[in-house]
């Protein structure tokens, strides 16, 4: 254990040294974020759009006194933090460690807050308070909300009341009252999904399984297309047999169910194989972030070469 710690400490020191050397003592450096200042309104304040080192150098060589393209210190710091996050998460693949634990804690807290902020500004304000007290919301945060003649929509008192009942759970007594909104949600979900799945998936899938077993293609018998249709129909029916609950999987039913399992396995194998490409693309994007955006080791889009 002791030796391992030392090896890791050495690797980290070496890595940190390389980073400092690269950032500070090479011609191009690495990991800096540039911005372009764009005046907004009547020039009351500037918006800072992302720009590249390349933009900056070009504009600087045209006019050394330009103030349009700038190095952004906060964004540069944040870029390094983002790179740290990336490496910290990947470090979990080796083993659980304090750095991962810290980043995990940051991530959990940050994302919980993130979604609550979104729910507040995107749902509660426009869809609840904006409906129940439109004028107040207009005066405060959303002047454009539902036009100048916004009227109260009293239907929205229902979710408001249900919501308050839900929050009653935190009260010391009578927390059973929270079951009412829960029952409302579960009941309406059941109703909506019952109809949606039966009308959508169920009928749709039956309809698309109705295929001719003999395919006529421009007047000629198309053997392969016919075989394909036959396979689809047999496949659907045998998989359904597999799902049958009333019979044990023995005898004829068992054999058909077995064919069904084969179809399912082929389906799963195909989906698995097909998904690999997308997952690798995700990893490639992360590694490109590290090599390109942060380390400036590669530059396919010519963003940070002189």
């Amino acid at each position: 254990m002791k030796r391992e710690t030392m090896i890791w400490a050495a690797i980290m020191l070496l890595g940190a040294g390389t980073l400092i050397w690269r950032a500070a003592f090479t011609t191009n450096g690495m990991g800096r974020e540039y911005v372009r200042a764009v005046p907004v309104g009547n020039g009351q304040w500037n918006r800072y759009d992302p720009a590249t080192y390349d933009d900056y150098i070009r504009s600087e060589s045209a006019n050394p006194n330009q103030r349009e393209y700038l190095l952004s210190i906060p964004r540069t710091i944040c870029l390094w933090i983002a790179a740290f996050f990336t490496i910290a998460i990947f470090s979990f693949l080796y083993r659980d460690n304090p750095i991962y634990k810290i980043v995990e804690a940051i991530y959990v807290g940050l994302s919980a807050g993130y979604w609550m902020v979104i729910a507040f500004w995107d749902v509660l304000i426009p869809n609840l308070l904006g409906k129940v007290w439109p004028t107040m919301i207009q005066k405060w945060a959303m002047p454009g909300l539902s036009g100048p003649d916004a009227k109260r929509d009293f239907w929205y008192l229902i979710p408001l009341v249900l919501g308050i009942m839900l929050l009653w759970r935190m009260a010391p007594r009578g927390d059973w009252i929270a079951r009412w909104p829960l029952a409302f949600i579960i009941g309406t979900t059941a109703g909506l999904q019952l109809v949606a799945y039966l009308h959508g998936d169920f009928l749709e899938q039956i309809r698309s399984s109705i295929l001719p077993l003999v395919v006529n293609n421009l007047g000629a018998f198309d053997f392969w297309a016919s075989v394909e249709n036959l396979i689809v129909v047999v496949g659907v029916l045998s998989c359904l047999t597999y799902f049958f609950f009333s019979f044990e999987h023995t005898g004829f039913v068992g054999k058909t169910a077995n064919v069904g399992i084969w179809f399912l396995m082929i389906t799963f194998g195909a989906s698995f194989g097909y998904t690999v490409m997308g997952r690798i693309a995700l990893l490639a994007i992360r590694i490109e972030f590290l090599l390109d955006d942060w380390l400036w080791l590669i530059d396919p889009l010519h963003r940070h070469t002189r």
Partner: protein
Amino acid sequence: MKRTIPLLITALGGFVLIASYFIPPAQSWGENVSIWFDILSSIAFVLGGANLLMSHLKSISDRKSGWGYSAVVLVSFLGTLFIGLGKIGVHPSPQFPNMAWTGYYREMGSGFWFIYQYGYTPLTATLFAMLAFYIASAAFRAFRAKNVEAALLLGTAFIVLLGRTFAGVALTSWIDPSKWSGFKYFTGLKIENLTVLIMSVFNTAGNRAIMIGIALGIVAASLKVLIGADRSYLGKD
């Protein structure tokens, strides 16, 4: 009172919505209920947030092992809430320069934008990217031809994977009708065509049956909830 009324609410809510599907004047009710659901789930954030606060405060005050991480959770949670709800760093909307709160809370350059851009996004993308590693280790461990089913799973995945590389295409490129006319009956065996066949025939059949089954399962499960046969979500009293 504690169980009967919720059961009634469940049944009433569900059956009314089912009926409304067939009655044109009521067909928009479902959408309204979906909006209400979003509102309720947003209000419920208070419960989730309180739960998060309490459990981490408790582990800090109990000095449980790893309580320091709980402190980190709390700091990042409250910090994000403060920056996001307070619209820190957000400028007022250009149309209403005198109203401080009119700016868009995710405006570029604002505090919340920084959190999104340099915290949320890289963290999410990196965790998502871990799948590339797990998919490799799962393939190594699970894809062994132990029986017919496993062999089919493995074989199909193998063909599809191979078809995604130039090696797979090269392997069957000798099936070329221009070299020998007899090959025209066998072009279906070329690996790229085989992939198409697997995806469009076998995969279609399997997925169709799964979807029909799921639809039936959802209908039966919904019905059990609505008629009160399954009331496990109500607890006991």
